[in-house]
């Protein structure tokens, strides 16, 4: 599997670490809603098909990616920064600060 890191371009899957379901929402830090915390920590969307997930380019620039990957075919249909800043890569390449 080749994963396209927004900074580093297409790289082999061996350079990446899977960080799981990207649909999970972390409650506000001071939230006392235990159900919401439990859902965040333990429950996963586990679809057969397109899956929104987080990966880290741990063997490279160490940025986190959010990508959509099909769990039946392993085809990746989109990748971007997990932090949602789609311009960061362009700025980075242009020598600007991220």
């Amino acid at each position: 599997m080749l994963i396209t890191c927004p900074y580093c371009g297409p790289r082999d899957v061996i350079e990446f670490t899977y960080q799981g379901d990207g649909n999970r929402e972390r409650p506000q830090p001071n939230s006392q809603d235990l159900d919401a915390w439990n859902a965040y920590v333990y429950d996963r969307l586990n679809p057969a098909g397109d899956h929104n997930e987080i990966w880290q380019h741990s063997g490279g620039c160490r940025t986190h990616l959010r990508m959509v990957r099909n769990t039946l075919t392993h085809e990746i249909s989109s990748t971007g920064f997990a932090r949602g800043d789609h311009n960061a890569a362009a700025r980075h390449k242009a020598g600007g600060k991220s």
Partner: protein
Amino acid sequence: MSPRRTETGGRIDRLRTIRFTFDGAPYTGHAGDTLASALLANGVTLFGRSFKYHRPRGVLSAGVEEPNALVTVLRGEVREPNIAATMVEIYDGLVAVSQNRFPSLAWDVNAINQLGGRILAAGFYYKTFMGPVFGPLKGTRFWMFCEHFIRRAAGLGRAGIAADTSRYERMNAFCDVLVVGSGPAGLSAAKTAADQGARVILAELEPRFGGSANWSGETIDGAPAADWAARAVSQLEGHDTVRLLPRTTAWGYYDGNTLAALERVTDHKETPGKGEPRHRYWAIRAKTVVLATGSFERPLVFPGNDRPGVMLAHAGERYANDYGVLPGDRIALFTNNDSAYRSALALKKAGAAIVAIVDVRPELSAEMRSLATEAEAEILSGHAVVATEGSKALSGLKVQRFDMNSGVLSGDARSIHADCLLMSGGWSPTIHLASQAGARAEWNAARQAFLPPKPTQQRWVGAGAFNGSFSTVEAIAEGRAAGLSAAGATGAPAALPDVEAAPGSPDPAPVFEIKAKGKSFVDFQHDVTAEDVRLAHREGFVSVEHLKRYTTLGMATDQGKNSNVPGLAIMAEALGKPIPEVGTTRFRPPYSAVSIGSLAAERFGDLKPERLTPMHDWHLANGATMYSAGLWYRPMIYGLAGETIEQAYVREAKATRESAGIVDVSTLGKIAVQGPDAAEFLDRVYTNMFSTLAVGKARYGLMLREDGLAFDDGTTWRLGEQDFLMTTTTANAGKVMQHLEYFLDVIWPELKVHVTSVTDEWAGAAIGGPKARAILAACVTGTAVDNTALPFMGIVHGRIAGVPVMICRLSFSGEMAFEVYSGAGYGTHVWEALVEAGKPFGLVTYGLEALGTMRIEKGHVTGAEIDGRTTARDLHLDWMLSKKKPFIGSAMMDREGLIAPDRLQLVGLVSLDNRPFNGGAHIVEELDEANPHDSIGHITACCYSPALGKHIALALVEGGKARHGTRAFISDPLRKRFGPVEIVSNHFYDPDGSRMHG
């Protein structure tokens, strides 16, 4: 000249004689021979024994699909079992031996299995060997008794114990077009793509490029096809952008158009060239793959089809044309299609007598009749072979009239004298890689074969026989089209070369099996017969996968390359369904077996890197015994002559508490946490406060996981308003780093914090003991180290031996202690200066054992207690759980299961029988040495405490805190150590910390 070697012809070098042995007997062959061709040339007919019945077997094929002629190749003590003789290129000194026979290939006692044929039918294991339900052989004993003998009779070659001394290497390659297979289709594709400027890799599993062009006897553009191929190869060699890989099997088609290939670099050489690996493993990322992998000829299923001397028709043709070997003097052919006629003619031209062509089809084309006439062969159309004769070599066969529509045999059997029978059951495209790429094969009724479908997930294009286009002219045309499309070009219509080839239809008659009395083999190596397939049907094992698993059809080393389609056809007939409704199995990697050495490649003999601290060499030079901890090596003890481990660590710990000791702590994880929000971030990450920490001070911190369990601990130093240095445990350094990065990048991207792993940038030495401050005072310049300048948890900057250092006063040993950090490159320099300065004070170096001893005495926790199952409360660290702020894990840490009173809690244990403990021993309330039961906990760490003069331990015990002052027992049945203990607080030594605070 060997008995079966032709005077001329073939691609071998008759001027170069090569000497080798097989089963100890010396033979000669020529350069260009395989072991199979060389032995055939020497008149050898018996190559191996089958798996189950130990039937004598010859050689069936001339290629990678060989199921019968398997040998072990020996290089000294190093063994390579189960290699097809058809794939071994001979070299001077080659030593090959046959397999699965005792005492010899010719006389094998296990051949007696043939007598049990019907009892040993498919699935017989499942129905017996269950043994008695009572008595000494009840339960699994009887089966295991039988299994002992079954295992010894099964198996093929013997694996080696001696380590392989070869080197393996891995290459990553990238290209526009990877062409797999170098027959006319592959060569044409590679050349076309290369001419378009594409970066091309051409992989050919055989030693020579050209595929069938090398032995088809056809003519391309007026020249022999082999010359056309050679010219194409030399043109490809002229391109800078083309890489040619002979002896390279593309065996796996993985995600992202990544193909795995194995190049056998030096297997064919007596000694490898300088620097050459034995195998090279290629991971090839191709924009497009051209699959020009050709096709396999199928055997026919009829009684005695496994007799040595029965061979695939094209293999016979290839032995003659490629190797100059006649597989027999009197050759018969048995076919359901036209391709065998060309083979007959080729063998006739090479000098053999063609005694008959037995064809199941009643009507033959005029072209076939004329080819047969040219071969001077009698045609027996509408006939079938119903038996073969001979034992270790073929002596003859029997034929009968055959109605291919009904399958009925009629008339008298006629005997034909022949020493070789060539068979052809039609051709199956080699679609394995396409199937691995996710494509589902489609049955083509005309070709009687599974053809590749259109690609779905991956980017490949097929050409030639792979597509079911079996003629050379089609192969070249499709190869060119594939090359163009793979290179992203559109075709300028250019003239295709003229091909002169024997005529013939690509479509066989739909005949797979001749039903007659006797064993008809479908899977040769595993001895699966047509009757076994029908038995599977009778017992309901009718899906392809059940058939495979129940009979072991297709599970042999040829992976069903010979047996897959015939097996399916027989099952389809039994079911009364068309073949496609029975289905085909999905092929999985590898296409053919791959050496494990090549897959490990550079990691063979070097599994994981070694992490060494900057002072590693000093430790070795000064008597340290090293301990492997994860990837790190750390000093365990610095033993003196004659000391035991215990004597050494007791001495080291004692000296530290009496004067001073120094230990290498460079392995601790170190992370620079920097930025305007660094303090806020640490407040969220740690259970306790860090924003209140003054610059120039350090604090002990505890982290939880999101689920509220303890994760890691360590001190974090505030070096500046926005600049922290975090330390982690050695084992968790990587995990903590990833944890921090995840939160900063994914959860709290708004925080302006940067984290950097600086573990390898700093060398660390911890120096502790009553004299530690005096030692520092003696060698540190640029700063005072007294209590005012350097209070508990204070940090100062100074120099030791001219090198800048950072010193923090903190303690793991419980003594007044300091951690001294310097740049890693100066680690040994500073360490030596500290050791030198310590000499007058009686400073000792100490290792992990003494470190562990002193931490047990203090009751500090490490990974043995923070084991991923314990909470802060379990470890009595709840004083660190801030109530003023949320932190990672705070919301989850109070769930019912995590606050239950009977949880395992940290305690101390004191041995009451003055005998040592063992790590991993359990604790019970009632001792029962015979039947230990009701464990209430276990020891996490233990030692002899020089400070207390007792054997002590830390332990996790159910409701442990409430048990302080009570007695229990050690129960260690594994090591038969039982005895009384007292449960105490984990803080054994100096519980109020007066020594540390000084």
